[in-house]
Every structure is written in structure tokens, then in C-alpha cells.
């Protein structure tokens, strides 16, 4: 039964070829039986279709991840509320008390919580988005699903966290004597646009993070700079007003106000805060809303949302590489 002869690799006969393959060749044979090139990126519309079919995976994965987030902590799910509260307490102490930034801003606490929570949504969506591919290589390699599920899931997780934060925002608004008006309803379309924008950003950094590991190193610095130029903890007006640079380059004021992070935050503040002196001081008011704000915001959301999706889809076949 056993071969006792010595085996010399060079002397082995060439392996037999499949007769049909030898006759037809690879590509015609694949065409004959309707086989598809493995790992080939589907067309954009097909991609959208399979992505929609996996929507339960996206939400199921996000919910499971969210529940697991604080499972190691003793206080458990209470941290969902405690984390944003502590965040605001720190910022209120530093910027409201130490730096006394509340000058000129009525209801500084409400002003602060909206800024901090909304920017935090953008920030965490991008940080977790950038790692969503590189951290889940095992899952990507074992099971086949459209990879865009992962950065979208990362953003959904942050949206779920934002829901807790929004409860605090509403509590602060009511607690500081704001009366609900019809403008409060506008919070919902604003959040939809912000979600679209953040998903696009998450997909862009997810693709970058999947090939360039330096992305996650660099991202915190970019995000911190973005936070400080977006009037999160203080009003943009208080910085722009007497600054020599902006006096010489007045067009930069528009750049500052139309930057998506500042625009989203300003709009949300104007939805929830009474704003009777913005008209008087124009761009020097802490709640100044630049003209066409909603339209520009829609533009940002569509541009970055769709652009990010297409950018991510273009490298779909490469994400398993690691």
C-alpha cells in the first residue's frame, strides 16, 4: 500500500488539468456556467440593494455593540446617561466658570450642551468609523456582507448614544425656562441631516483607516482643531469679533460660519433657544445663523453622505486584505 520510493519534487509529473478547463480556458468556462469573478465589486445600485437587504444586520449589530459597551462597568447602562452629564459638567466648569465664556450668551448651559453633544456625535462617529474596518477583519473574512454595513453601524451606535444625550438637552432646555415652540420639531430633520453627514464622514475615514493605519493616530488632532474652530464651547462671534486676522480677511468669517460642524450646531441651537437679539448684532451675535443655513446644511449632508458612500464603495473589494 505505502510507497517506499523516494520522492523528488522536480520529477513529479505535472498535475492533471480539468478536461473542460483545458479545452475552454478559464474565462469562457466561467461564462458558460455563470460563475462570477470572486470579490468583484458590485455595481453601485446592486450594492445599495444588498446593503438595504442587510439593514437588520446594521441595526442588530449596533444595538448589540451598544449594550456590550458598558457591560464591564459596575454601573452598567447608567453610564449611557452619566457619560454625557459628566462631559458637560467638566466643560461648564472650565468654559463657563474658569474662562467665563458665558459673557454675552444667555442660557450658557443649554448653549454648551447642544454644542458638546452634537460635536461629540460627529467626533465619535469618525473615530469609531475609522476603526470599523480594521477592527473587524475576522468578521469581514469569515462572512460575506457589504462592508459599508460596518461604518454605518458605527454611526448608528453613536446615534443611539445621542438619543440619551438629547434627553439631557431637552431636560436642560425645559429646566432653564425655555418654552417649547414649533421650532423644536425642526430638531428631527436637523438630526437626520447630521446623521447623513456623519455617516459619510465615517465611511471616508473607514476607507482611509483600512489601508493607512496612521489615520487613527492623526484623527484626534484633526478633530480637536475642528472642535475649537466650530464654536462648540464658546460662541464663534466672541472669537471672530475683534480678531485682527478676520478684520483683514472678512470672507473667512463666512468660512467659519458655513463650516459644517458650526452650521449644524448653530441650527440646532436656534431650534431650541430663543433668539431675539441675533438680528440686532448680526454675525457678532452668539446665535448668528448665516443666510441659507438650512439649504447649505442639506447640501453638506447630501454631498458628504453620497460622496462618502461612493468613495467607500470604490474600494469594496480591498477591505478583506487587512
Amino acid at each position, binding site marked *: 500500500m505505502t510507497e517506499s520510493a523516494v520522492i523528488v519534487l522536480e520529477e513529479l509529473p505535472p498535475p492533471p488539468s480539468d478536461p473542460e478547463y483545458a479545452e475552454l480556458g478559464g474565462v469562457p468556462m466561467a461564462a458558460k456556467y455563470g460563475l462570477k469573478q470572486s470579490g468583484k465589486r458590485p455595481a453601485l445600485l446592486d450594492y445599495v440593494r444588498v446593503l438595504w437587504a442587510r439593514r437588520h444586520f446594521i441595526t442588530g449589530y449596533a444595538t448589540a455593540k451598544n449594550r*456590550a459597551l458598558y457591560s464591564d462597568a459596575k454601573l452598567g447602562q447608567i453610564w449611557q446617561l452619566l457619560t454625557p452629564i459628566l462631559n458637560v459638567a467638566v466643560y461648564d466648569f472650565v468654559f463657563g466658570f474658569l474662562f467665563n465664556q458665558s459673557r454675552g450668551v444667555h442660557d450658557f448651559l443649554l448653549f454648551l450642551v447642544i454644542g458638546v453633544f452634537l460635536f461629540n456625535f460627529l467626533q465619535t462617529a469618525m473615530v469609531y468609523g475609522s476603526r470599523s474596518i480594521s477592527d473587524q477583519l475576522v468578521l469581514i473574512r469569515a462572512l460575506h456582507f457589504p462592508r459599508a454595513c460596518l461604518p454605518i453601524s458605527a454611526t448608528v451606535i453613536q446615534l443611539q448614544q445621542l438619543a440619551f444625550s438629547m434627553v439631557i438637552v431637552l431636560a436642560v432646555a425645559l429646566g432653564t425656562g425655555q418654552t417649547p415652540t414649533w421650532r423644536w420639531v425642526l430638531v428631527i430633520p436637523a438630526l437626520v441631516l447630521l446623521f447623513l453627514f456623519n455617516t459619510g464622514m465615517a465611511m471616508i475615514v473607514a476607507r482611509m483607516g483600512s489601508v493607512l493605519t496612521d489615520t487613527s493616530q492623526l484623527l484626534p488632532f484633526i478633530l480637536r482643531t475642528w472642535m475649537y474652530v466650530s464654536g462648540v464651547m464658546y460662541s464663534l462671534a466672541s472669537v471672530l469679533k475683534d480678531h485682527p486676522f478676520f478684520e483683514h480677511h472678512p470672507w473667512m468669517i463666512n468660512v467659519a460660519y458655513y463650516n459644517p460642524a458650526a452650521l449644524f450646531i448653530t441650527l440646532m441651537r436656534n431650534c431650541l433657544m430663543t433668539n431675539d437679539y441675533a438680528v440686532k448684532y448680526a454675525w457678532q451675535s452668539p446665535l448668528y445663523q448665516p443666510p441659507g443655513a438650512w439649504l447649505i446644511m442639506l447640501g453638506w449632508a447630501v454631498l458628504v453622505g453620497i460622496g462618502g458612500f461612493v468613495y467607500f464603495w470604490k474600494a469594496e473589494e480591498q477591505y478583506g486584505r487587512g
Partner: protein
Amino acid sequence: MAEKQTILPSQILRAVQGVEGEHSLSDEEIVQMRAQILEERAKRRAEAATNKPTVIVDNLNIIYRIHGAGTGRGSATGALSRIVSRRTSPTVKEVHAVRGISFVARRGESIGLIGRNGSGKSTTLAAIAGLLPPEKGGGVYTDGQPALLGINAALMPDLTGERNVIVGCLAMGMSKAEAKAAYQGIVDFSRIEDTNPHAMSLPMKAYSSGMAARLRFSIAASREQDVLMIDEALATGDAKFQAQSEARIRELRESAGTVFVVSHSMGAIRDTCDRVIWIEAGKILMDGDVDEVADAYETWSKQS
């Protein structure tokens, strides 16, 4: 009869060779069973030869490009200018891992890939799964989407076993109801609750590598995959689970799927595969019947 089914082809082969004498079978029975195994295998292979192909590997070449090899980290300014100008780094080393492999796999085939470490087995599987883009002039064509099970740790380490099963099912494209329906079957098959009744409510990072491998295999094997590829994924399971998952592999093969197995255990290869491809230095050395190729490989391994 029941006794007969638990005796695996590799055990019979060893008995024929007279290597292991611990069994209750007479010599005639052994010869008879060996003949039966060979006959069934020849029949299966003859049938499979005319089946529809599921995987066509056509002159596959895979080159890994490894950054920063040789000269350490390189200078920061150099790296920046390369990123800006999109030039490839001079320190990139190319590793030609798979060199012009061609073969066709058909429905009902179970194919073992053998060869030394670094010979290109896992790279070939990754390319079939569509994870590694092939070089120009060749390609991999598949029927449906192949699933690849590797040796790696948990799917989603911070989630509980229960969540891993449900979310894993959803990722494979099941609906919520289908995932719920499949759940108990997967847990039962994995036998994870045999040793610890609370195992499913523990995060998967708390599992031993064997437990994690069992659950992962159970999830991926729960669905009728057209092409299932197992890369040493069963090596960490205990003997009982290995026997059970090998039975599942034979089942998948019978339900007209194609199964690829990478393993260094010739016993596992002989028990699950009809056909074996021996890969050495990125090229196919032999491609044929399991006994013929495995014997040659074992002889060659011993002589050097």
C-alpha cells in the same frame, strides 16, 4: 452497524497498514471496509467530475507588497512626500506567494489543500474568498459567495455568544425571524453549553480558542454554503467536536456544496476529503486522489 459508522477512513487505512492494532474488527472486515471506502470514493469522484463547477481558479498569481521592509521605519518626510505624490515606497518588498495556480472544483467535491507552512495554501483560499485581488492575467471565478473560516479568535469578541450567533446570522443575510429559528440549532451543534450552561451569555472573548472555533464553525456551517473553506479552523476543537464537524463537512459535500479544507493533520484530510491538492512554493505539485497525494506528501515529509 452503529459501530461501523464511527470508524473513519483514516482508521481503516491505518489498520490495513497494520500501524494500529486496537480494534475489534477481523482482518477480512478491515479489507472489506477499505475496499468499500475506495469504491464509494471512486464513485463520488466520478460523479463530481461531471457536476457543475463552483470554483474556477485560472492562472492565479498573488503578490503581497509589504511596506517598510528592510530599512526600518524610513524617514517621516520621505513617507509624507510619497503619500502626496502617490509613489510606491522604495522599501516595499514583493512576495510572490501564489505562482500561477489553476484548478477547477465542482459540486460535491471536498478538496484538501496540503503543503508546508508558507507554501501558499491560506493565500489561495483568501483569493477564492475574494479577499485578495489577483494579479492581471488570471482570476478566480466562483458560484455564489464562498465563506472562509480561519483560525482567528472570536467573530465579535466583546459581544456575548448569543449575540454573535444572531448578528452572525443577520450578516449572512438571514432575516430576524430566520436568525431566531436557526439559533437553537447552532447552539446545539456547537455543544458549548455541555461544559458550561451559561456560556452563551458570556462575551466571546472569555471563550477558550476551542470553544470560539466551535461556535464560529457552527454559525458558518448552519447555512447551506455553496463553497465553504476551512483553514485550520477545526484544529483547536476537541476530538468529539472534530469528529462531529467532519461529519458536517461530509454532509455539506453530499448536499452538493464544495468544501475546501486546509489542515496539517493528514488524518483529518483523509477523513473529509476525496481529492487533495499539494501546494509547494506557490505552485501545484500534485492534484489527485486523497490517498495518492497524501501518501506522497507523507513520504516526502519523512525523507527530508
